[in-house]
């Protein structure tokens, strides 16, 4: 028995080493990327990757399927854009306001949604986010169909000029890394363990004395806040905030990204978002209908690799050999 234990320990250590190496390669890649690829495209990928990771915190690690995450993403984009453009606050404060606003919205929507489970939970989040969509459509502060345009990127901490693409890129990269680290930390924490136990068996968690609703609501607010971080960032990158980001299609897109990459994995949503955003970018110039392609991809994903790209890899023999998963 001890031998098995030891071999599984060493396998885990080697897995950690491989993962660290992959992480290092990825980071170096992200540092070099803006000199090779178009920075705005890369920033878009990073924003959506963060958005999908925030969504995955709820779906993959708490087991709650929200169909209204666009409200937090797009809502934060409006908050940040409004604060920066109309109030003239510095970019870092603008993003912070976006995060706080999204978290507050998460508190309200989450408060109602966690009262129900499964499909009813999803329907409540959809209904409330649609209400927010109509609010955005009608109210003055969002400028309706025009959206908030010409949002200045401003100077980070007063001296870094974010209108320079490279400065902006590295700022986005920094926020992205911090955001992903936050997700990783929450998932791999005592709190994250309770979230996983709720996902696994909610009644059992209750019978162990956990006030499950409070844990769910906390996870919902954290996920909303991180989605808001991505949304606020996106508003600065593109220098506008429009209705597109609060539509239900956006909520659907983030589900697709997460499913495609692999729910309940850290890298899955990042990969899924990269794939979808890249695809959209290429297809937008060909005149080929993007929604048809994403629809087909969604069907293929659900039929053939339900665990998503990273999930299937983790479950494969190669991953077991490399030690990503203990066999016993």
């Amino acid at each position, binding site marked *: *028995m001890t031998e098995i*234990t030891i071999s*599984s320990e060493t396998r885990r250590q080697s897995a950690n080493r491989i993962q660290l190496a992959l992480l290092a390669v990825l980071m170096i890649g992200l540092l070099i990327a803006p000199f090779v690829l178009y920075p705005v495209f890369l920033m878009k990928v990073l924003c959506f990757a963060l958005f999908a990771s925030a969504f995955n915190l709820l779906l993959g690690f708490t087991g709650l399927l929200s169909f209204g995450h666009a409200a937090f993403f797009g809502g934060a984009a409006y908050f940040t854009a409004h604060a920066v453009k109309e109030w003239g606050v510095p970019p870092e404060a603008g993003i912070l306001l976006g995060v706080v606003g999204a978290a507050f919205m998460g508190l309200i929507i989450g408060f109602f949604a966690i009262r129900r489970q499964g499909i009813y939970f999803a329907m409540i989040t959809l209904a409330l986010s649609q209400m927010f969509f109509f609010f955005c459509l009608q109210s003055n502060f969002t400028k309706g169909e025009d959206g908030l345009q010409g949002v200045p990127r401003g100077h980070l901490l007063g001296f870094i000029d974010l209108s320079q693409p490279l400065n902006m890129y590295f700022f986005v990269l920094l926020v992205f890394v911090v955001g992903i680290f936050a997700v990783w*930390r*929450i998932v*791999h*924490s*005592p*709190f*994250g*363990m*309770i979230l*996983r*136990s709720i996902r*696994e*068996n909610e*009644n*059992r*968690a*209750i*019978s*162990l*004395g*956990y*006030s*499950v609703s409070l844990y769910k609501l*906390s996870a919902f607010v*954290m996920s909303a806040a991180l989605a808001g971080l991505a949304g606020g960032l996106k508003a600065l990158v593109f220098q506008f905030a429009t209705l597109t980001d609060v539509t239900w299609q956006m909520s659907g897109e983030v589900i697709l990204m997460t499913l495609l990459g692999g729910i309940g994995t850290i890298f899955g949503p990042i990969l899924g978002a990269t794939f979808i955003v890249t695809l959209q970018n290429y297809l937008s110039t060909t005149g080929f209908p993007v929604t048809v392609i994403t629809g087909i991809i969604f069907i293929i994903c659900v039929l053939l690799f339900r665990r998503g790209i990273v999930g299937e890899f983790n479950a494969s023999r190669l991953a077991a050999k490399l030690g990503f998963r*203990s066999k*016993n």
Partner: protein
Amino acid sequence: MVLSARDLCRDFGGFTAVNNVNLDVHHAKVHALIGPNGAGKTTVFNLLTKFLQPTSGKITLLDHDITKTSPARVARMGLVRSFQISAIFPHLTVLENIRVALQRPGNLAIQFWLPLGKLDVLNNRAMELLESVGLENEYDSQAADLSYGRKRVLEIATTLALDPKVLLLDEPMAGMGGEDVSMVAELIREVAKTRAVLMVEHNLNVVADLCDYITVLQRGEILAEGDYATVSNDERVKVAYMGTDHD
């Protein structure tokens, strides 16, 4: 008396699943709840642990009225249940399953900013519990990979991890092999020395051997109660279990 129910009733849209049940569970005693299928045993469990709200009646736990208390709060007050279907966390390891139960009393449940390694302080206690049920060698396995009987054993160990004052076990031996049955029976006998146990059980040998007091339910009502000798000689109980005697 640590747990008591008075005139407990529960209707499901006109169907009375539990009708005027009175129950007293005592410290250091094993109390069995038996009865044919559909008698309302699990409903009584759900009412006592507040997973269901009673239509009428009153429930008292350690001199506190818990009739309107939430299930999580009832659990924190020391009334912990197991489930009929093995209620484990399938994709956590065996050790993690136990640790989840230990996290709350150990005040390590809300820290979203701490690394998982902080939970290692609970490992010793968790391993002790696993050893007490003979699961120590499987600590690193996924709970889903355990055999059915071992899952039930894990569930009981998880329940015990909370050191409850009252233990409600819903068919703890269902689907277990003979070896596990005697081990779990021994375990229940041991833990009942210092706490109250209420269990639903179909295996009458186990009930005869283990339980101090028996309540027989039929169609949501109490049919008979007393020790095993009293209950097993009761004509109505015989009829309920064996059908009408035509001779």
